[in-house]
């Protein structure tokens, strides 16, 4: 980074957020400044990018993410996204972004009807997204998933559009990059692990890159994702 300014990455804590501290830690470990944001505030504290972390916001009652999208801070997040700011939704954060209409599709109960926590491989499908800006299509990253409701679905028409417009950012795959079969942990349509919006500044994914930045606790497939987030954020902020 030419600039010695550290990008300020906000992480929203909703009641029931669980991986908020982990996301803040990952931002720090990767060289950014983590900024705590609170669901009830109407203030993004001047951050350069926003992460909606994993967890069970509001207990996931009603439907995952369905209540969180009405939190006061979500108005700010929506405005920030519309202005081109980078927004990343991880797991429950992905569910919230889909509920809020900021990302296409929806996440339903895993096909096997059980919670699943395991390490998976994902293949990068496009470098157009805050989490993949430094990556090239075809790269394979090892990251963990942990969710009960992570099966990505969309109507036939939406799914066509998602594929046609290149909105799929990550796909579950074998360690060699092949999709399908046992490597899809939740039965997601087209093995979709993460998608972006048309503008390319909002991205959501079920895997947890924040749990894959520290070699002491596992693989490090989250490192290049966070590095992409930091460098693309810095580039955007510097250009502005």
């Amino acid at each position, binding site marked *: 980074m030419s600039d010695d300014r550290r990008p300020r990455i906000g992480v929203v804590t909703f*009641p*029931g957020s*669980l*991986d908020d*501290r*982990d996301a803040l*830690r990952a931002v720090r470990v990767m060289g950014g400044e983590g900024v705590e944001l609170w669901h009830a505030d109407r203030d993004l504290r001047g951050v350069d990018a926003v992460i909606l972390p*994993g*967890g*069970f916001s*509001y*207990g*996931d*009652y009603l439907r995952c993410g369905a209540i969180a999208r009405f939190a006061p801070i979500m108005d700010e997040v929506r405005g920030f996204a519309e202005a081109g700011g980078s927004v990343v939704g991880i797991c429950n954060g992905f569910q919230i972004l889909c509920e809020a209409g900021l990302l296409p599709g929806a996440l339903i109960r895993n096909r096997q009807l*059980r*919670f*699943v*926590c*395991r390490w998976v491989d994902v293949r990068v499908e496009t470098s157009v997204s805050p989490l993949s800006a430094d990556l090239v299509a075809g790269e394979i990253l090892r990251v*963990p998933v*942990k969710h*009960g409701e992570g099966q990505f679905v969309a109507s036939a028409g939406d799914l066509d559009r998602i594929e046609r417009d290149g909105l799929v950012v990550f796909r579950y795959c074998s360690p060699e990059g092949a999709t399908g079969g046992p490597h899809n942990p939740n039965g997601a349509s087209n093995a979709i692990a993460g998608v972006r919006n048309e503008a390319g500044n909002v991205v959501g994914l079920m895997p*947890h890159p*924040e*749990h894959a930045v*520290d070699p*002491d*606790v*596992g693989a490090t497939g989250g490192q290049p994702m966070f590095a992409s987030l930091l460098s693309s954020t810095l580039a955007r902020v510097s250009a502005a």
Partner: protein
Amino acid sequence: MSTSEPLHRQLGLTDDELWSIRSTLGRDPNRDELAMYAVMWSEHCSYKSSKVHLRGLPVEGRSVLVGPGQDAGAVDVGDGIAVVFKLESHSHPSAVEPYQGAATGVGGIVRDVISMGARPIALLDPLRFGPLDQERNRWLFEGVVAGIGGYGNCIGVPTVGGEVQFAPAHTANPTVNVMCVGVAPSERLVTSDREVHEGSLLVLFGAATGRDGIGGVSVLASSTLEDGAGERRPSVQIGDPFAGKLLIEASLELVERDLVEGLQDLGGAGITCAASESASRAGLGAEIDLGAVPLRQPDLEAFEILTSESQERMLAIVHPDRLGDVGAACERWGLSTAVIGRLVRGGGLRATFGGAVVADVPARSLADGPVYTRPMVAPAEAEDAIADDPTFATVTTPPDEAFLAVLGSPNVASKRWVWEQYDSIVQGGTVMPPGADAALVRIEGTLKALALSTDGKGRFGALDPYLGAAHSVAEAARNVACAGATPLAITNCLNFGNPERPEVMWQFAQSVRGIADACRAFETPVTGGNVSFYNESGSSAIWPTPVIGMLGLIEDHRLAVRGGFTGNGCWIYLFGETFAELGGSEFAEVVLGSLTGRPPALDLERERRLHRLLIGAARTDLLESAHDCAEGGIAIALAESAIAGGVGFAVTLPGDQPGHVGLFSESASRAVVSVAPERATELEDAAAKAGVPITRLGETGGPGVVFDGLFETTVAEIAAAYEDAIPKLLAG
């Protein structure tokens, strides 16, 4: 339960206990008071049958900060960090309603840890079920696992370990134990030593109080489950993990900001227990206004409010000056607070409702229940079972068939189906996830990590409760030592049948003695625990099931040793010696159909030498892998190391024992390790110095699994047998 019975008997109190209450009060207790004594003097809350035996456990040690008697024990791990941990049973509710029973078990033990002011950082779940070929056992197993996940995954505490075993004796009564581990700065621990003031307020926060779990401890946990257990479903509490998560954050904020004088979770016996313990520990009394308790439904009676076990509630003792801050902190987390009373001079617990006094009893008399020395007798069949030893049986099963049968036995086979349903990585500290001998969890901001293991040797205990319990401690310590960590202290959960039967009481006393002797030998004091009696239906009790929760510490987690082989060309060694000991072994049950015999001998000093060797070898980074040798013997230890590492091996078993003895004997005090060849001499010297026998077995490498002179197979084949066993059984 006949309604013509006098009220005290309907509530589970004996005639003698009623007399004792009368003499304490100098009058007849009223209905509400009787309900309070019934829950507080229940076996679950009072430990009335177990207390005399538990006194024999070693509870003191250099690192112990808080011993038994408080919500959870605490141990000093250096640098001003305290580790709080406790193991508890939720078997009775789980037998009635597996999902909620297990879920509320997690919630309850987590609240025990936060009430000490510690942030929960790990959960472990030791479970016992009947065989999976029966549909009801599959329902219980699937429900309990889903319930543990359903609660644990929603509160942001990783479930990092535990174990699952299956035995016919657990068919009617599954055993569901939950362990929680937390950390706190030592000076911030909320212990009973804290200064608590007269006039301080009792502040209830969290969920509202409902009719769920009324008399849960006396009705469910302190009597056996007979037909019609389903009718007891209203006595099972319902969990709300979202509220549980908010309660964790709010409670820790209160402690971190030093806003409370005391903190108590509401578990068994609800407000009665929390208020009487808070008051009597402070040498004070309490006045409670039941009308101030927020209710979920309007028509609760006084005794229901006093004894409700509604989940997700905590009681804080708050100086009046701090009340505003406490209310604001709770409100930020969306939790309501209510001042339900105050601490007063004297020792009385006085409850009013609608202006009338409904109960007025000495607080201490509730906490100091009766103590029984119940009769004990060794079961007549015990000696016969021991005498019928399978060690010298004629074995016709070829060794490769026996090997696959043992590897695919549900007790041995991979429990991936279970632990993949648990979030094991949240909080970012899980260095060694489930599936290893011990789980390893880093303490944030340090290089230290906690090594955690739960163990209970079912068959050994069924044959010889003393030896089974001692083996359980030994295996738990060995698991921790295999990771390179030093065993520090234990918690335990003692799961048994009906203590009013002398045979059960004998099993209990023997087990406690076994734990005491092993803990003394390993210098791992007992910091607390839980006793769960009445795990029986009809005359069929569960096996004596003392479960040990071991806490170990490694100063630098980067030196931790894993169980999987790391690559080709390492030399494989056995620490310890293999004797002809197949009594109570997995092989004996699975291959010979035998549940009899003499369990392996246990020499506690020999065991301790092995621990020292493993810990020292880890400290000098000598080992590539280390794996405890337990169920299924050397054969299974080697197989698990191969599967975990994805690396094969070729070995020659030592000595001139028959093949099945060498492969499957479960002799104690052994571990299978691997080492880089250039450091083999160093390892041999270390073993000699430690006084541990060491034998070279062979070498790692390739896709093959070779037991020279016995049989050959491949890692891929054994991995499939190991991983597929439980999913196949569940498919029916």
